[in-house]
């Protein structure tokens, strides 16, 4: 494969930056950290561009890097899920940001890790089945069944909480 230049990489990345930012925000629960994570992921991606298999969806590869950057950032600031949720509530009280995504992010944390992860990538990241398979390194069949059962689990939570 011919080596990709920095500007070619930037062009490939551009359409997915907004969704990546939304995905990172849903994990990190605030805008500045989400922006940092996406920036860090963009640099990492550029460093590792040779590892990208051009036959597979770029978006799946890119979101795998964004996901790792978010987890690294979470580890770095030593924030457990509980403290992150605490920060979110403080941020919410100060700002007039729409809270629907925050409610959803909170509901997702009540699911199993597999279900939470696949729903987050599907809805915040907008990944299709092929991209989900690449990002999570699982077969397509597993994507189909995991996503289905994750939806059912989420539906149960939403009904229980009457939202």
């Amino acid at each position, binding site marked *: 494969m011919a080596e990709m230049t*920095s500007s070619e990489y930037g062009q490939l990345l551009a359409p997915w930056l907004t969704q990546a930012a*939304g995905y990172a925000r849903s994990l990190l629960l605030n805008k500045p950290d989400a922006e940092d994570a996406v*920036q860090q992921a963009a640099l990492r991606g*550029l460093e590792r561009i040779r590892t990208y298999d051009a036959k597979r969806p770029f978006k799946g590869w890119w979101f795998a890097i964004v996901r790792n950057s978010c987890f690294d950032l979470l580890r770095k600031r030593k924030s457990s899920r509980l403290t992150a949720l605490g920060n979110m509530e403080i941020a919410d009280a100060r700002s007039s940001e729409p809270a629907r*995504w925050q409610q959803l992010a909170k509901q997702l944390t009540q699911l199993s890790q597999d279900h939470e992860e696949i729903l987050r990538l599907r809805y915040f990241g907008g990944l299709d089945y092929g991209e989900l398979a690449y990002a999570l390194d699982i077969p397509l069949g597993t994507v189909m069944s995991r996503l289905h059962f994750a939806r059912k689990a989420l539906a149960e939570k*939403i009904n229980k909480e009457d939202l």
Partner: protein
Amino acid sequence: MSSIDSAELSALLDGELDPERASMVCQAIASDPVLRAEFEMLKRLDRAVAEAASTAAFEAGVVIPEEIPQNHLLRSIAAFVPALCALLVVYILPKLLDLALSTSIFLHIIPFALIMVWAFRLVMRNDEMKEWGRCFTL
């Protein structure tokens, strides 16, 4: 219950089934009220969740450098190998050739300088190296 896997309802909703299979699942939904109810529930959930998730997205100001950065680990190894070679030469060569003390000291200066240069390269990024280069040429 029909021969439809319930996970295929999600796949149909997401447009991930091939046309032939999609039409089979559609027929099953039309004829089975249980499947139809489940499909409708999934549709409602999908719409609500997608709408909520879309409010998180925002324009992230991302800067892509013009130069592709080198992998830090590879850079570390690349910096370490010449320094190690130089060290081997300086400690093995005088012993093999039984050199005089002054020659041996002179040989020590070479790897020391090499190690310093490579250590400097390790901690400096490419753009910073260029800045330093400009300082030396002025």
